[in-house]
């Protein structure tokens, strides 16, 4: 669980997504700058000095990564589905789609108007028979079909679906009323969501809306709007007889059914579970108007904990192999990852992290889980047909209708309330792992239940998850956290999608930098583990070949992937340090500036061993840019300890010499520059040499020897010095050019 504690440092602070987009300028600039051969010979020896170059990032546990999730997160879930797969598709209304976190719209979602967890967005449920599964454009929907195997669920929540909606004007008109109904229907749950946070005892089941019998939703006649507040009654009484005392509003067979369900229970856990499942079903039925229509006697009994325990291992291999068949860069993975981040946020407290990981493998289910009130996911995902479909779709190369993720990448500011939540989350996790996926109701209920079960036994799976999850989990937890916060605080629909990052799935170690012009696709973004390999690869290649263009390109793409995924940890620091060093060596100050700006922020967020060193470089960079204001600010903030640091002390001395025009001292210090400061100084030594030479020329009479100038300007040889002086058109007193005639050369002074 300490994973969670650490997680607070991972993605907490805002990142500047722009930086990823604006960092291509210096790409071609690998100008061969003067280098300090005597200090920083290229090649291995350089890196010996900087451990950052050689640190390895091997994560042995990584190999188990995906596999593990398929087992833990998805397995039990599927098995449960298979049990209850025939559990009517019909009674499940699409109305919950509003609750589903819609896939990203094709355009950048404006944070305020973007699809929100609140169900205000109109989503016309389409009741026409399902489209053939080959519909590539809306693979997302198709996937849902594939897994659902339910014709009604033509979820049109995605951006693509919106487009489709436009085209299907007729459909829309036809279902407009329906739509209204659903909007109405969807409205009520929100206020309770707020209340339930604070109120431990929600309305008892008796206030279940006494719904008039309504025709099944596949008629286009909309049912009358429901009374708003009890639309989502949440039963918190753990006792089964809460359900055994139904009001007269319940049909007899439903009562019987409920009784049967409870009869099945063996343990308290079972009861609670059944409690939840039943309520989900009844609520669902009530909301879709099937409460009376439905033949409850035929309703399958919900899977219970004790039973399921035996089932899980059986189903597992199937699922596993199924998902291992998914092509590496396949769409489902990509989509899944993207959705995963979001779905998990919506699910928030509905499941343990194992489920959130499974999300990256099973987007469809995840999607539905996010709508935890809806029993969609119970539908037969285990039927062979759906599996076939699913597989075929995952191979579909096109995936239109993705939203701009970049808009969500920006600021991830966590509020303090979130920290408080984290504790809650842990508790929930324990509980939900215990109950696995069968828990099905809306997240509010889960949250409340979590309170009861906070001391419940911890499933072994959970522990494993913690071990294997690494970053992904941390982040998800945070998403969930932040979502919860938002969800509770923000029922009006101001949901800020910029808080969420995608999780990449690309496995390429090498990837060229390409400026993002649109939202990044998850399949084009590499996860941290791959990036660590990439960094090692770049370092190795750099040591070997010194190909700056290649290194810069690769590092930029690593940086971009990190930015896109909102990863800000020690590894990010290392990437930027590496790039900064390479840029330093090659005199690419634009790239260096980008890196050091990021590093400055990263150090304050996550710290780093080379902080002082790079602080010194930054000060030197300010000298290079003659940014006295920033120098001033920096001197304000330097602590006495930092001032004592060798590199920083050196730069401070240098700054003083530079500021006073004490060139002699300046160039003397230049000769003893520690670390890589010499490289930064190279950027402005030429400028200062010219300044100093002008002073020399004006103040010395009658002449000054080239050897003196060589010494004063810290040139290594007189030839080099003469090469520098040649550009000015000076007058020499002798043919050997050892003495500069200062007076005669004064004429050229203004042009120097």
């Amino acid at each position, binding site marked *: 669980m300490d994973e969670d504690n650490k997680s607070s440092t991972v993605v907490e602070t805002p990142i500047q997504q722009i930086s990823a987009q604006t960092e291509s300028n210096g790409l071609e600039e690998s100008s061969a700058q003067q280098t300090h051969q005597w200090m920083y010979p290229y090649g291995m020896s350089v890196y010996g000095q900087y451990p950052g170059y050689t640190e390895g990032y091997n994560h042995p546990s990584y190999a188990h990564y995906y596999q593990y999730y398929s087992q833990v997160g998805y397995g039990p879930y599927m098995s449960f589905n298979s049990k209850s797969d025939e559990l009517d598709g019909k009674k499940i209304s699409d109305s919950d789609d509003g609750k589903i976190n819609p896939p990203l719209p094709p355009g950048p979602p404006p944070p305020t108007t973007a699809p929100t967890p609140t169900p205000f967005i109109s989503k016309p449920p389409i009741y026409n028979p399902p489209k053939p599964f080959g519909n590539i454009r809306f693979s997302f929907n198709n996937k849902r079909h594939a897994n659902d195997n339910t014709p009604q669920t033509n979820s049109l929540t995605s951006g693509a679906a919106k487009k489709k909606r436009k085209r299907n004007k007729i459909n829309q008109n036809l279902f407009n009323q329906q739509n209204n109904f659903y909007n109405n229907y969807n409205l009520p749950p929100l206020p309770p969501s707020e209340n339930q946070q604070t109120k431990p005892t929600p309305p008892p089941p008796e206030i279940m809306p006494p719904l008039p019998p309504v025709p099944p939703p596949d008629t286009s006649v909309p049912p009358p709007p429901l009374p708003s507040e009890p639309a989502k009654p949440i039963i918190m009484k753990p006792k089964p007889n809460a359900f055994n005392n139904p009001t007269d509003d319940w049909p007899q067979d439903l009562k019987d059914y409920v009784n049967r369900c409870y009869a099945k229970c063996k343990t308290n856990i079972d009861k609670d579970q059944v409690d939840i499942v039943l309520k989900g079903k009844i609520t669902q039925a009530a909301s879709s108007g099937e409460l009376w229509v439905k033949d409850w006697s035929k309703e399958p009994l919900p899977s219970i904990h004790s039973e399921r325990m035996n089932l899980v291992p059986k189903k597992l291999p199937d699922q596993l192999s199924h998902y291992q068949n998914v092509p590496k860069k396949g769409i489902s993975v990509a989509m899944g990852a993207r959705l995963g981040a979001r779905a998990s946020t919506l699910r928030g407290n509905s499941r343990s992290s194992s489920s959130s990981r499974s999300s990256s493998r099973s987007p469809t289910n995840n999607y539905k889980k996010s709508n935890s009130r809806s029993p969609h996911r119970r539908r037969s995902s285990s039927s062979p047909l759906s599996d076939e479909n699913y597989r075929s779709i995952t191979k579909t190369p096109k995936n239109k209708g993705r939203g701009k993720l970049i808009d969500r990448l920006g600021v991830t500011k966590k509020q303090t309330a979130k920290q408080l939540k984290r504790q809650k989350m842990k508790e929930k996790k324990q509980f939900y792992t215990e109950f696995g996926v069968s828990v099905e109701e809306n997240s509010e209920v889960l949250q409340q239940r979590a309170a009861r079960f906070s001391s419940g036994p911890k499933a072994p799976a959970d522990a494993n998850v913690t071990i294997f999850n690494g970053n992904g989990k941390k982040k998800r937890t945070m998403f969930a956290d932040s979502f919860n916060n938002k969800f509770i605080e923000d029922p009006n629909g101001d949901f800020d999608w910029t808080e969420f990052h995608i999780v990449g799935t690309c496995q390429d170690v090498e990837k060229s930098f390409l400026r993002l012009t649109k939202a990044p696709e998850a399949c084009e973004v590499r996860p941290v583990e791959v990036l660590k390999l990439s960094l090692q690869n770049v370092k190795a290649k750099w040591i070997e070949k010194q190909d700056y263009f290649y290194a810069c390109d690769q590092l930029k793409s690593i940086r971009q992937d990190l930015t896109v995924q909102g990863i800000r940890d020690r590894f990010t620091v290392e990437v930027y340090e590496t790039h900064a060093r390479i840029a330093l060596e090659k005199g690419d100050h634009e790239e260096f500036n980008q890196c050091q700006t990021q590093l400055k922020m990263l150090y*304050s967020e996550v710290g780093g061993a080379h902080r002082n060193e790079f602080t010194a470089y930054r000060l030197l960079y300010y000298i290079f840019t003659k940014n006295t204001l920033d120098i001033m600010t920096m001197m304000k903030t330097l602590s006495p300890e930092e001032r004592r640091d060798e590199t920083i002390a050196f730069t401070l001395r240098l700054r003083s010499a530079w500021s006073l025009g004490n060139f002699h001292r300046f160039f003397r210090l230049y000769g003893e520059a520690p670390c890589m400061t010499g490289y930064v100084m190279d950027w402005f030594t030429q400028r200062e040499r010219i300044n100093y030479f002008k002073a020399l020329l004006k103040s010395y009479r009658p002449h000054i020897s080239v050897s003196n100038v060589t010494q004063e300007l810290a040139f290594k040889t007189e030839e080099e010095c003469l090469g520098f002086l040649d550009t000015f058109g000076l007058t020499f007193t002798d043919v050997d050019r050892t003495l500069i005639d200062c007076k005669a050369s004064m004429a050229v002074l203004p042009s120097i």
Partner: protein
Amino acid sequence: MDKCWRSQDGKIIANLISLRNDHVTNKNLVLDRPEAMVERFLSNPFDEIVTCHIKCIHALHNKMYLEAYQFQSTLTQLLTKVIQNQREENWALPIMYTVCLDLRLLAQKVEKERNNVNDKPGEILERAAESLLGCFRICAADNRSSEEDTKRIGMLTLVNQLFKVYFRINKLHLCKPLIRAIESSPFKESFALSEQITYRYFVGRKAMFDSDYKAADDYLTYAFENCHRSSIKNKRLILIYLVPVKMLLGYIPSKQVLEKYDVTQFWELVQAVCQGNLRLFDDIMDKHETFFIKCGIYLIVEKLKIIAYRNLFRKVYLILNTHQIPVEALQSALALLGQDDVDLDETECIVANLIFEGKIKGYISRQHRKVVVSKQNPFPSLIGLS
């Protein structure tokens, strides 16, 4: 208030809407939901403004500064819209001044209260600056009204508010367009004197940071001379920047002035520079480093060392009474005053710089290791050099 609103008395409303007025401490106004009450008395859009104001007071009362800031920010935006829709009238400007000032003060307060590591410093102030800029644009764009009623007269007040924010968050480059707008304004001379002084104070500081000492001198001198004699605090602030600038240009402030405005840190500095006492100079730099750095004048004060070199070398010249000063003599003088790590070459370098800058007339002879100074006025007065 309603009456004032109708009679368009900006000043009284400004007082009533101010967060610094006495009424803020009135317990009766600490209300959580003032909407209903306000609606009874006031009409749209003024009711919204007052509601925001009361909410802000409520937040302040509970020490929730961020919330208070947000309400004040909303208030500013509401007021911006109101003022934008007022054609040919500028009576509401005092309200805007008050609201903007409160907004900035609140933002500063919030910044001070925030100590979360993950909060970007200056973020709130930046947002405040955006709101202020919104007001500024309205004023600047109001160029169709007649001269008496134009809102452009309010520009300078807003610019000064913005300066204060920008200087605080170290974004001086953002001042440039504002300065341009003011300099090109036809009302340049008709702005209130106090605002002009504030404006020049900031522009002078900016010029100083840009190493444009001449301009800095002009602006700061104007500000200092026109600043009301009773506002000692402001005069002191101006002096902190004016003294180093003046000294760099060769003007030495009198002790009385420095004492009057409680900036005696400079007096020792003046002495060290005048005497060429480098040891004292270094000591002062150490002693008052925090003060100099806090005021942002460390780098300028540091440059005074060059003047101290010049004065020291002049003393050596006067003592030796020769036009050919051995470099060794200069070096030993430096070493005597604590600069013992300076070798002959470095001494030459210092002299070379002084010659280059015109502070010494003469030349260095490398062969003889001598500084040959001009027979006429070898150490010209610093005044009029640059």
